[in-house]
């Protein structure tokens, strides 16, 4: 069992970045880098992370990094992965470095889904991390395909009328060797999943809920607390999918085993500002019920992956 003491001390995400206070992406980058180490090539898809790393000629990220165009996370990884294979063949590299793509939900759910799907189908050997803040935060918090029902964004002023899509399930449908969801509130679960992804050959998809303090309208100090409540309420489910089997992990596992009681979705909606309008409206109760239903449906769908079903 890994403990905090086992996490490497070296920081490849360097302090004094341009990230907002309490930014989930910067913390997630720190954790991912601890798991993957220095022998990693990082591709950052256009997102907040293109900006929070600083600007020319300085950078907060101590890894070889290429900022790539919005729709190109998967394809750029395929290019790097093919090139490092050629360099190993040529004898210029002893072994292939990790190839890590870092993208937001806009670059994953929406504009980047084709490129990601292509790379997964090609079995490109890389780790794709989607830090999902459920909106286009970098451009000032517009709606994305990951925005949940009822959430305010600048382009859903009355709250989003549609459900979010479940892209991790779409990735599982690609038959890739590893899909996992993570949360910053469960750092060892996150770290271990990254370590596992590092050892597996092929496409690995890891998605993290990234509560964005300014976008979701809560104080930066509450970032971990909001992450935790997302898991405790079932609005963010922690699991990993490997060899045709889904295993729930961390707090989600404890809830489903009946060891901890699931918190109502309402508790999660109330600790952030983006659901305020819908909660105070006559449709609030309906939205809440629909979200509770979405959670139980998601759980049932994930439970459908157990071996006896197959």
């Amino acid at each position, binding site marked *: 069992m890994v403990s*905090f003491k086992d996490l490497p001390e070296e920081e490849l995400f360097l*302090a004094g970045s341009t990230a907002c206070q309490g930014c989930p992406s*910067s913390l997630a980058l*720190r954790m991912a880098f601890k798991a993957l180490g220095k022998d990693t090539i990082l591709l950052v898809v256009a997102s907040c992370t293109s900006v929070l790393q600083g*600007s020319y000629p300085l*950078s*907060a990220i101590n890894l070889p990094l290429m900022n790539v165009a919005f729709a190109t996370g998967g394809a750029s990884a395929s290019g790097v992965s093919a090139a490092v294979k050629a360099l190993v063949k040529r004898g210029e590299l002893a072994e292939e470095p990790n190839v890590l793509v870092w993208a937001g939900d806009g670059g994953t759910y929406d504009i980047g889904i084709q490129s990601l799907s292509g790379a997964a189908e090609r079995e490109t050997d890389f780790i794709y991390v989607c830090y999902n803040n459920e909106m286009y935060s970098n451009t000032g918090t517009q709606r994305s395909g990951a925005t949940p029902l009822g959430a305010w964004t600048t382009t859903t002023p009355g709250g989003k009328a549609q459900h979010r899509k479940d892209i991790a399930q779409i990735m599982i449908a690609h038959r890739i060797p590893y899909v996992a969801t993570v949360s910053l509130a469960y750092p060892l679960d996150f770290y271990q999943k990254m370590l596992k992804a590092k050892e597996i050959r092929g496409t690995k998809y890891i998605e993290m809920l990234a509560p964005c303090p300014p976008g979701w309208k809560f104080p930066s100090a*509450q*970032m971990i607390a909001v992450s935790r409540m997302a898991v405790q309420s079932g609005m963010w489910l922690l699991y990993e999918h490997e060899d045709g089997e889904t295993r729930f992990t961390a707090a989600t596992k404890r809830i489903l085993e009946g060891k901890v009681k699931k918190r109502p979705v309402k508790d999660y909606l109330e600790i952030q500002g983006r659901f305020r309008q819908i909660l105070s409206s006559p449709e609030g109760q309906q939205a809440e019920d629909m979200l509770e239903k979405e959670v139980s449906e998601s759980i049932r769908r994930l439970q459908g992956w157990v071996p006896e079903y197959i």
Partner: protein
Amino acid sequence: MSREKEEVGYMTSMSRPVKGCAGDTGEWRVFRPVKNDDKCNRCLLCWVYCPEACLTKEALEIDYQYCKGCGICAVECPTGAIEMVKEEKR
């Protein structure tokens, strides 16, 4: 190729990793985390949860040059060893 041309010939958008690429981000702070070592049980949660890599793992020292004062460490500390104190006007 003139000298001026040589000078801008390879201007690309390449950047060097450094600490403090955004300057002394400690100046952004409104509240300052102050740690009470007597209460600290060295659980490392503050080090783990710091989004800005502003604590040392061994001594759990806070790097005030860059700490933005987000307050996560104070909220997450299980023993209440970190208190957020309002910064004096600079």
